[in-house]
């Protein structure tokens, strides 16, 4: 870039690197670095979970009980079944509530001004509920069902806590799903003489079903990994599940309990259970992402 040998006429036409070009380059590099630093932990966590967890992976994991302290072998069969039971309970509670709430929000809430106000408040409540920490859902179920002795420490209490956490996701996704059902479908149904409930139950909901299911699966995936809501509602158990009104083992609480004990076999089980949990959740997240059009995760 030496300009000494050039005539003075051309000199002005040569672009010299300026401070702002340099600054732009540096900043671009910095934000690229930010993106890199943000993604590194994902691979660090996934990599370790894969490497430490896959070693113990076999079918016997799902058919055997965790070993007593100091012994090796065994599996997390009871926790696997327990997680299934607890998440299913949560789903059974959250889905009817969530889907019917969404039906109200998207179908019936603009009949009058009051209805619109109600819908606005319900949406607001749901959004704030989405930010409630899972431990608070646990405390709620504990205060409502455990201390009062209604269920005591049990799978049922854990199901209620998980339902609270699943509800916002179910409502939001079902609301979106109902909104994209074309208006003409409703008009056609009403035009043929169908009443409101018939239109919704037999025409609109079936049309929106795939997207609603996607939302439910997403909510279940989050519930599967949740621990804080289960620690003092489901507690833990070293035995096979004995019913929904008894304490029950779950995979996520198993990870928590076994991560902090000084026994190698237990720690290995914790890694294997983590690997299994992460796999389930990643598959569910990726699958639901492929179905739902891109929305910000909130």
């Amino acid at each position: 870039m030496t300009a000494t040998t050039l005539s003075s006429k051309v000199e002005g036409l040569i672009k010299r690197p300026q401070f702002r070009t340099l600054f732009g380059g540096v900043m671009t590099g910095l934000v690229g670095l930010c993106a890199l630093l943000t993604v590194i932990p994902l691979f660090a966590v996934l990599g370790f979970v894969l490497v430490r967890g896959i070693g113990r992976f076999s079918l016997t994991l799902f058919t055997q009980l965790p070993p007593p302290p100091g012994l090796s072998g065994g599996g997390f069969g009871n926790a696997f079944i327990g997680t299934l039971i607890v998440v299913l309970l949560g789903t059974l509670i959250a889905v009817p509530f969530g889907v019917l709430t969404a039906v109200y929000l998207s179908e019936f809430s603009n009949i009058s001004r009051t209805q619109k106000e109600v819908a606005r408040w319900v949406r607001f409540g749901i959004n704030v509920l989405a930010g409630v920490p899972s431990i608070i859902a646990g405390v709620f179920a504990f205060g409502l069902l455990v201390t009062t002795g209604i269920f005591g420490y049990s799978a049922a209490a854990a199901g209620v806590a998980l339902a609270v956490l699943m509800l916002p996701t179910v409502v939001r996704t079902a609301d979106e799903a109902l909104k994209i059902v074309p208006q003409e479908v409703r008009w056609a149904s009403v035009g043929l003489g169908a009443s409101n409930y018939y239109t919704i139950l037999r025409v609109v909901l079936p049309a929106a079903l795939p997207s609603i299911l996607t939302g439910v699966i997403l909510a279940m995936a989050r519930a599967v990994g949740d621990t804080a809501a289960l620690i003092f509602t489901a507690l833990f158990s070293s035995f096979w599940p004995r019913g929904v009104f008894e304490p029950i083992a779950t995979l996520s609480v198993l990870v928590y309990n076994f991560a902090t004990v000084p026994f190698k076999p237990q720690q290995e089980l914790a890694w294997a259970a983590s690997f299994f949990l992460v796999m389930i959740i990643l598959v569910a997240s990726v699958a639901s992402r492929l179905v739902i059009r891109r929305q910000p995760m909130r």
Partner: protein
Amino acid sequence: MTPGAALPEGRSRSPQERLIDRLFVRSTLGLAVLTGVLLAFIVLVIAWGAVPALRQFGLDFITRSAWNPVPGREDFGVFPMLAGTLISSVIALLIAVPLGLGTAVFLSEDFIPPQPRMVISFLVELLAAIPSVVYGLWGIFVLIPLIQPVAQWLHANLGWIPLFGTEPVGPGMLPASLVLSIMILPIMTAIAKDSLAALPPELRQASMGLGATRWWTIFRVLIPGAISGIVGGTMLGLGRALGETMAATMLIGNSNQFQVSLLAPSNTIASLLANQFPEARGIQVSALMYAAVLLMLMTLLVNILAEVIVNRLKAKYE
């Protein structure tokens, strides 16, 4: 949207059908209202459980530092955990805000082609899908050993600063805050990115047209334009960090003493609840409920603020 309003009233329907119809509409309304007031119900249930402790300890509970669940000599004060909750969340924000904002700018500008941008956005969102307890496990076995030498060095060379004034023992404020920052990155990045993408393209064109460089435009036009979304996302991240339980409880060391040092074990309200609820009895349960009320109030406040800010942003561009 609704066919309900447009129903021709004159058409004859059987009374049963009308009844079912009305019941259906009413029941969806009822369930929606129930869902809406669930939040208030949750607050009520927890506050109800906190009443005995509130009576016994009053507001001093917030400023005192005793935690003694021995029967007959119970004494509870939540100050160290409250401080630990706030400090760990603030440190997490200090790390996550610049990283998240940088990543959001990187993903909303055209530095790289759209395809890899989509992939990176997706990877960042996957961070949010990893369960908290797995972060905790990873923190215990990977992160703590990894940062131990760094912590040793900080204590050896900068030990005269109170922040690094204690011998690092492994678990403590530092690893917990680091993992918290990783956990709140996805939500902050996603919302900042969306609010940057929601800006009208004319803004950028006008700025560039006046001769501003790309970075000048980002700093002086785009970020100020999207600031409400960025702040809202940060608030949501803060709400997550305040209530984050498993990763915190596995990494922070659960010490109920307040210490200034970041290398010392500490505690947060959420991890206090996770640790003590399973074995709590009597007035201790109530004291924990009291602590839970405080945590709930903090997260609600932060989330409601975030919700209001984000809603205002939506209203602006829709």
